[in-house]
């Protein structure tokens, strides 16, 4: 009994050592100290994931496949990229950012976290695009290595339906936008491939303000050789892509002055206001759909009265919760989608077109259908489409680019939504 009492006292002591308890009778003041402690590691683990078709050299030693080594904190290192015969360097990226290379040298400076660098190669023939080498992508400052405790999929910010990291292009745009209006009509002011801007410049109080936009542009599907896939008509094939926005990445971009993230898949762009994205990590999924084919029966019933035209996209934003993932699409104010007007008008000659926003509905959702009003139908909104984004579709000529600078734009007011024109 005495021993049990001693153990109880010991446990009580341990509890009180972890928590400081202020207990006072009557009035008066008390002051207590809390110790804040942070430890910064002295070295970081860097993993180099070298794709087939080449290797990298560091300090005279060749690395191929997966290699792991320690780098003292804030130190720099240089990789020399060496493609095999018949191959060429395709892209290098880390934490979703394409890394710029100088000649065949890739220098990472000021390493401040663990991370994995992906280096990919492709065969010399049959390449139509080389992300990372075309001069359009943002050159990294090399300080983007982040936590390697994340899994491989999470280290690239764009993944496919199977969770596999896929290459993408990253671009910075500076636009002038009326901050007070909801339609977000923006006009390109200049293209700035440089660094961030002072966030104060983007204050909402201004009638118009400069908006710094981080554009994440996905690429068409590729085969194992890295060639872009085409459909029967010769058009590039696009599939669902997910944009992984970690809490840290959101914080970084906000601090660098970015106010919007544009996630571009095929001919649609999802406009994500950074201020509306909370600190928690989230996943943005944008899926190009074939008309009517991938809808539920309930959704088809609802669509009977509409004469649909043009492309269709499904958008959904989820955030991690304790129970899994929650759909937060409708919680993000001013979330917008823009669709290339040329693609909407391509099939039918119309003077007017509207966008239909259809929420996710389960099968046999008769009750939901009855309650569904027309609030999901939005009026056509024309908005300036940035030519820089149009250039993602290389099938468009310069003349066509000049003629198609408008797009449809609509706010997304509901959770998990399919967008289409009618």
């Amino acid at each position, binding site marked *: 009994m005495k021993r049990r009492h001693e153990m109880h006292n010991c446990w009580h002591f341990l509890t009180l050592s972890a928590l400081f*308890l*202020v207990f*006072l009778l*009557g009035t008066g003041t008390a002051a207590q100290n809390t110790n*804040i402690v942070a*430890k910064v590691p002295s070295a970081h683990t860097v993993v180099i994931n070298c794709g087939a078709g080449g290797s990298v050299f560091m300090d005279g030693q060749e690395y191929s496949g997966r290699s792991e080594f320690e780098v003292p904190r804030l130190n720099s290192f240089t990789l020399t990229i060496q493609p095999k015969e018949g191959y060429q360097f395709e892209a290098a990226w880390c934490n979703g950012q394409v890394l710029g290379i100088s000649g065949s040298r890739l220098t990472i400076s*000021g390493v401040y976290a663990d991370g994995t660098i992906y280096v990919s190669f492709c065969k010399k023939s049959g390449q139509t695009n080389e992300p990372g080498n075309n001069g359009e992508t943002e050159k990294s400052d090399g300080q983007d290595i982040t936590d390697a405790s994340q899994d491989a999929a999470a280290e690239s910010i764009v993944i496919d339906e199977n969770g596999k990291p896929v290459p993408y292009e990253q671009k910075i745009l500076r636009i002038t936008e009326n901050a007070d209006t909801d339609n977000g009509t923006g006009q390109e002011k200049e293209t700035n491939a440089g660094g961030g801007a002072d966030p104060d410049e983007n204050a909402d109080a201004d009638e118009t303000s400069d908006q710094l936009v981080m554009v994440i542009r996905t690429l068409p599907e590729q085969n194992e050789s890295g060639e872009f896939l085409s459909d029967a008509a010769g058009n590039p094939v696009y599939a669902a892509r997910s944009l992984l926005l970690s809490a*840290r990445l959101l914080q970084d971009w906000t601090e660098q002055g970015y106010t919007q993230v544009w996630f571009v898949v095929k001919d649609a762009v999802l406009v994500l206001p950074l201020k509306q994205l909370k600190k928690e990590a989230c996943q943005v999924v944008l899926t190009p759909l074939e008309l009517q084919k991938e809808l539920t029966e309930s959704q088809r019933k609802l669509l009977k009265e509409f004469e649909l035209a043009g492309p269709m996209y499904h958008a959904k934003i989820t955030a991690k919760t304790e129970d899994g993932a929650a759909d937060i699409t409708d919680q993000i104010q001013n979330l917008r989608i823009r669709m290339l007007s040329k693609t909407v008008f391509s099939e039918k000659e119309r003077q007017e077109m509207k966008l239909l926003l259809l929420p996710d509905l389960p099968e046999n959702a008769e009750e939901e259908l009855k309650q569904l009003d027309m609030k999901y139908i939005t009026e056509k909104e024309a908005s300036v489409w940035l030519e820089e984004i149009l250039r993602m579709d290389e099938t468009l000529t310069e003349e066509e680019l000049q003629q198609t600078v408008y797009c449809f734009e609509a706010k997304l007011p509901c959770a998990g939504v399919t967008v289409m024109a009618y």
Partner: protein
Amino acid sequence: MKKILLWMLSFCLFGSMTAMADNVITDTAADKTASTTVSTTVEAAYSVVIPASVPITYGAISSDLLLSVTAFRLAPKQVIRVSASSGGTLKNSVDPTKIIAYQIKQGNAVFQSTDFKGVGKQKLTVEITSAAWNTAAAGTYTDMVTFTVSTPVLEN
């Protein structure tokens, strides 16, 4: 001995008759009311739990710091006010000139003080920017935050 017992018994009977006479109502013409003041003093008491230390994970831009009041017995309009003061920089244990700036926040605002009107919890956060983390030299960094607890009476 018997005499002594008899005297004691007589004294007890006399005493009880006197006590009974106090409760006898002699005037039945009208009801009488009387008031009695009962007073007691309830001592004010409360307990506030403040963490003795807050370990910050490397790279964390926001770390929780929980304040809680587990007992609250104060006068009406009296609150428990917890305020904090700190230098705002974590200092390297080897080289104090190397620092990491931080802020204590409640929601989006820098924390000054908070009032508890009963038992409950309030979450503060220790926030360090990514830029501050990314340029920090290796090592252990610490700082002391002083929390002051008072019990002011609100005027309104």
